[in-house]
């Protein structure tokens, strides 16, 4: 190889190559079969680049995209309170406890050997161990029951919002909205990849955060 070899791509493409440089390289090529061979091979490489086929991903990426698009739209907290209901503190506390029990009842069954593994154990495991437990399946998620309990709590909070300071209500609404978006994103992504350990961990954590927030709201309403 010689110094001209490094200029062969530039010669091939012709971008910003002035006429004197082009002439110099062409003069060299006339007397250098090695460089002519390299030039031919570079042409082959560029030709192959133009014949590559486009392919689609193995899975459907749309659900994840749709979830992220949809999460950009905010759902006003007050829109959920379609009707006023009377509530008592015991009812609010009872619903919060039910939600806590439901969230704590989320367990994961390993496909290998049927070992039941608590999600908190997975979340606390070192990185490499979490990857080793990757092949788990979701069981007993109780989505409908969880959602019903959450809806009851939200309606109760909406009905009792007058007992709370307006600034507190705004903070609650903002935080619940952020958690709801995270939960919905995880749900949508899990629709395409239900056994994804990271997503399931993320969803469980978001639900725990929602539980903690609703507990705080309950405590505040009780004080009020």
């Amino acid at each position, binding site marked *: 190889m010689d110094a001209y070899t490094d200029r*062969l791509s530039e010669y091939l*493409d012709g971008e910003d190559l002035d006429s004197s440089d082009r002439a110099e390289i062409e003069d060299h090529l006339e007397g250098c079969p090695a460089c002519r061979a390299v030039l031919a091979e570079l042409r082959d490489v560029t030709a192959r680049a133009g014949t590559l086929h486009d392919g689609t991903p193995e*899975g459907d990426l749309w659900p994840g995209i749709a979830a992220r698009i949809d999460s950009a739209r905010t759902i006003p907290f007050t829109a959920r309170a379609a009707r006023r209901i009377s509530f008592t503190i015991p009812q609010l506390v009872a619903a919060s406890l039910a939600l806590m029990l439901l969230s704590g009842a989320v367990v994961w069954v390993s496909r290998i050997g049927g070992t039941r593994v608590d999600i908190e154990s997975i979340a606390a495991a070192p990185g490499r161990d979490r990857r080793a437990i990757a092949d788990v399946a979701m069981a007993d998620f109780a989505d409908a029951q969880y959602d019903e309990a959450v809806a009851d709590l939200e309606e109760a909070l909406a009905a009792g919002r007058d007992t709370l300071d307006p600034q507190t209500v705004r903070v609650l609404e903002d935080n619940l909205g952020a958690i709801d978006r995270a939960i919905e994103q995880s749900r949508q992504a899990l629709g395409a990849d239900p056994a994804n350990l990271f997503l399931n961990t993320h969803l469980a954590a978001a639900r725990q955060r929602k539980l903690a927030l609703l507990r705080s709201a309950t405590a505040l309403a009780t004080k009020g």
Partner: protein
Amino acid sequence: MASAAAGDVRAFERLYRTHLARVHSLVRRMAGGRDTDELTQDVFVRVWQKLGTFRGDSAFGTWLHRLAANVVIEKFRSEALRRRRLSGDDTVFDRLAAPRQSGDVSMDFEAALEKLPDGAREIFVLHDVEGYKHREIATMLEISAGTSKAQLHRARMMLRRHLNARCGV
């Protein structure tokens, strides 16, 4: 496209499905097969966000692919990372065993492309696959046109060695 820009998600989904293969392949080649699905999703979310800024100065596909390339570039952008990505081992094809020939030349070439050092691969994809000029690449990657040319030549020479090895040369 106008419907999608107006917020029609169904219309946007149709756009997505029309351009998915092209975008996914561009992302896969530029990123060397890493995080392809996640990056593809990032691209289309960015498209959704930026759709209102499309002025029609170019074909929509051209605009979309430029945006996709920028998403990948941003993903891997950092000064220290870029220095490593523009260096790398030129002898990778010499050291590896001759690639198992699948019989599909295109597939072998794609596999060889993924083995290139990050920076050289990125520039090869932008120039030889996507058709950008060195001045455009220099702007996108915040490098000089001279660096873009040198890295392209480096990528081509490495791929040339791969093709020679495949033919037993």
